[in-house]
């Protein structure tokens, strides 16, 4: 399958993986829960993909992976309804979207491209990406939750995206500066 995201560095997959979950970061608890459900779904679908390997068609693997991931989100929802019903309201729409996150973070495995280092390596790699997603989501959730009342603007979608864009620009500027310094040194 010719899919351009596969050509990106693995860490760069985190940015599109944030897209389905960003709205679920209204509080640190919600963000953390969403991240943990994503990691659980990655873990389960990863085992399934390792067992099946290339024995079934890609379409069947994608469908089965999505179904497994949504099943994990349903179980998570049922557990949350029993334990923390208030979180279910925050996450109702975002829990099924975990399937999309799984597809983004595990696509290298799903489409059998990242098999050079072995399936277990790919599995652990996607789990590590999932763990990183939990950290990033929780950090965004904490940032939004800790904002004082006079900075309410950054809690809304517009303010949050502008703040994230500014942070990304700062990171990019530091990277470019480092590359420039490295090039001058050599």
């Amino acid at each position, binding site marked *: 399958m010719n899919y351009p995201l596969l050509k990106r560095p693995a860490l760069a997959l985190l940015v599109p993986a944030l897209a389905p979950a*960003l709205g679920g970061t209204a509080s640190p608890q919600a963000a953390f829960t969403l991240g943990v459900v994503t990691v659980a779904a990655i873990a389960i679908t990863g085992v399934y993909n390792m067992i099946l390997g290339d024995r079934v068609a890609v379409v069947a693997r994608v469908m089965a992976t999505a179904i497994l991931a949504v099943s994990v989100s349903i179980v998570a929802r049922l557990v949350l309804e029993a334990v923390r019903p208030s979180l279910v309201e925050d996450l109702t729409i975002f829990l099924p979207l975990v399937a999309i996150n799984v597809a*983004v973070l595990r696509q290298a495995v799903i489409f059998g491209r990242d098999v050079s280092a072995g399936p277990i390596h790919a599995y652990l790699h996607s789990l590590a990406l999932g763990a990183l997603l939990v950290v990033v989501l929780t950090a965004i959730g904490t940032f939004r939750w800790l904002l004082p009342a006079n900075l309410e603007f950054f809690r809304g*979608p517009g303010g949050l995206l502008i703040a994230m864009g500014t942070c990304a620009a700062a990171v990019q500027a530091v990277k470019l500066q480092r590359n420039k310094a490295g090039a001058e040194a050599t």
Partner: protein
Amino acid sequence: MEYLYILIGGVLWNNLLVTHLLGLYPFLGERPSTDLQNLGMGLTTTAVVLVTAAAGFLIRTSVLVPWDLLYLEHLVLVVVLLLALLAVRGITGKSGSPMPDHLAMRILLNSAALGAVVLTLGSGPSGVSLTEKLISAVGLGFGITFLLVLVQAIENRPETRLMPPWLRGVPFQLITFGMIALALQGFAGIG
């Protein structure tokens, strides 16, 4: 008039970007580079959302609610979404211009598509008719199309080539989205 209100609402004040921060994926991931291709992708997404919402509504009212299986709704919706995508792909294949794999993947991975269906079926009182649900789905689909075309048009402007290198790519896209979200929030008073 009420249907027109729902339709425009899906594009402006109820746009998924503003209400649920969804629809960013095609921009933070990969997307077509021309306006026409983006329009095509948006309209295909709308068609997939519409078909999924219609099938989802029928399954919900005729199977899930009577048999008390509503907790399986999301699972059913994901399966229907995948089948709808395959069906739309099959239809475009027969018309002589088959949908490429990567386009199908972009639509599948655009969380706004599934989000639109979940929202359409879950929102409003239980007595809302199928027509209203479908118009709402089309409105949310048009909202996704609107974002795709709008951001592409902004990126294609010659002035964007003058921006500093540290602002190019994801930072510029995020800030652009933030500003669009703020602009769309301004319509909230109408809604």
